[in-house]
């Protein structure tokens, strides 16, 4: 279900900019997006607000899925309760009607919530291709889940000037720049690009 075109494996020529400052990453991503260069992804240890817009990501449609799951739960609860209480084995309890709808509200509510929560959870994992025990194939830097941020770019399109991109990353404040060439059978070659580091650490105090 997840978009295969955007994975690190399906592009031949890649450039990675490694950052340690979120603002530097955000600014650079904006500039690179405006240039029309293919951004595979940004890997960050925490959600950086605004980055999804800078990368040109669309709004997630997961809320629609959540709504459908909720409605499913609601219908399930209504069917279950009316089948049991009215059709299969109706019993007079305290001289109340068989279809005592107000008394059904708690279970209607709880099952709607249950189905929404688990539905959205499953949809989320499916959409990301996440499953227990999966070995992450897309780790560029082991510190990308710790304190470093990686901007992964595809260089396959015609007319992309690699040296210009590297220059943009360098000026934007990358602490490390790497280039990768993917070979045929699941192997690749990776090199560090030497460049002059620019200190962009936004001092705040």
């Amino acid at each position, binding site marked *: 279900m997840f978009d295969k075109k955007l994975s690190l494996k399906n592009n031949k020529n890649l450039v990675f900019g490694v950052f340690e400052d979120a603002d530097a990453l955000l600014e650079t991503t904006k500039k690179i997006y405006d240039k029309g260069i293919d951004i595979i992804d940004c890997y960050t240890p*925490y959600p950086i607000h605004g980055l*999804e817009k800078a990368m040109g990501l669309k709004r997630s449609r997961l809320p629609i899925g959540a709504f459908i799951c909720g409605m499913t739960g609601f219908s399930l609860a209504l069917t279950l309760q009316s089948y*049991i209480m009215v059709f299969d*084995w109706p019993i007079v309890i305290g001289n109340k009607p068989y279809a005592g709808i107000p008394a059904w509200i708690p279970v209607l509510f709880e099952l709607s919530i249950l189905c929404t929560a688990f539905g959205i959870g499953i949809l989320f994992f499916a959409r990301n291709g996440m499953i*227990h*025990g999966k*070995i992450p194939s897309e780790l560029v830097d082991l510190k990308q889940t710790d304190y470093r941020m990686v901007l992964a770019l595809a260089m396959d399109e015609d007319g992309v000037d690699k040296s210009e991109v590297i220059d943009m990353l360098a000026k934007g404040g990358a602490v490390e720049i790497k280039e990768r060439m993917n070979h045929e059978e699941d192997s690749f070659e990776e090199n560090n690009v030497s460049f002059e580091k620019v200190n962009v650490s936004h001092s705040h105090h």
Partner: protein
Amino acid sequence: MNHDSILRPRLVDSEKSIADVSNDICRPIENKASNLWKIGFTLSVIFLGLLGLTLTYTTLNGIGTWGLNKTVQWGWDITNFVFWVGIGHAGTLISAILLLFRQKWRMSINRSAEAMTIFAVMCAAIFPLFHMGRIWVGAYWVLPLPNAFGSLWVNFNSPLLWDVFAITTYFSVSLLFWYLGLIPDIATIRDRATTKGRKFWYNFFSMGWTGSTRTWNRYEVVSLILAGISTPLVLSVHTIVSMDFATSVVPGWHTTIFPPYFVAGAIFSGFGMVLTLLIIARKVMNYEDYITIGHLEAMSKVIMLTGTLVGLAYITEFFIAAYSGVEYEQYAFINRATGPYWWAYWSMMTCNLIAPQVFWFKWARTTPWFIFMLSIVVNIGMWFERFVIIVTSLHREYLPSGWVMYSPTWVEIGIFLGTFGLFFTFFFLFSKFLPMINMSEVKTILKNRE
């Protein structure tokens, strides 16, 4: 974007970098367990053993081993059930409701509060399940399955069945919410791991997380939806628990104020327990820069507010009983305050209404040892509240021939102490193997990043 607010104090003390956060919070997981941890864990396991022993004894010999009788059919069991469910509520309140209100101070306490929710609900579930008597059939009796003696089903008009749905939904949704929040942090530990075992297990549970922005983008949407549905869920759970009582016709239980009163009480007791745990944890695990005095103060304010709310409910109940003109209602309340269980009633009043008023003073709200003492008082008070509601309402029937006293047997006391063993065993395991503070969330609030 990145700025220091002059209006608001920092949420995390001192100049922590992003890398510092991972180092500080992964320390207990990556290092050997401390002696303090070992002692605490051993003690908890001993009490867990007591739980196993008393539950086995109950199962083999029946509910007659408890102090319940024909008049007081609910005693310590349901008191403890409501006590533990109530404690669970603070976790969801902190992570869901405070997320909706964009209260960023929640971020360094939500993980442990959610863990507390899950463990507390596990403790709670033990009581009604075992109270049903035959646990080997009771476990599926509560489910909507046709009965073996014909097509007789569960009764959807009964609040006890609503409770089954509410508690199971609450437990499983809380677990999902907690796990989802853990995934990015589990991935952090995976990528820092130096041992084979750690690499394998954290890889297994991290589900291939890479920190991709596409994933983060969906993750935030899912978190918001889960918070949105958990908020009414948490309110519904204690509302339904209160309906176990309120829909009956027992004087003292049959009141419409119960749902909001129980919800306020749940938040009150939950925050009490969060404070008890976190004041120790921040000291023992050196998390004082993350769980700051500011956090303790904010939680103390919640305690003061909700304590006053439950106090108001106690007084309202009394007023309504007097105003109703129903002599049975009136007697139930007079009997609560002046009858043979007067000591329970006044313990409740002192602990829940009067004691939290000290938090009007700033010193009281900002002194950890004092807040710790008061959090214990709150826990005791809220236990007494449930005892008062359940036992004093039941112990004098309409006919004086049904007037009895109730006291627990060693089995009931053992089960209650045993649930503390269960709770703390899980809590100690959690503090050793999972990050107690949500690293990826705390990283977003360093330097007051907006």
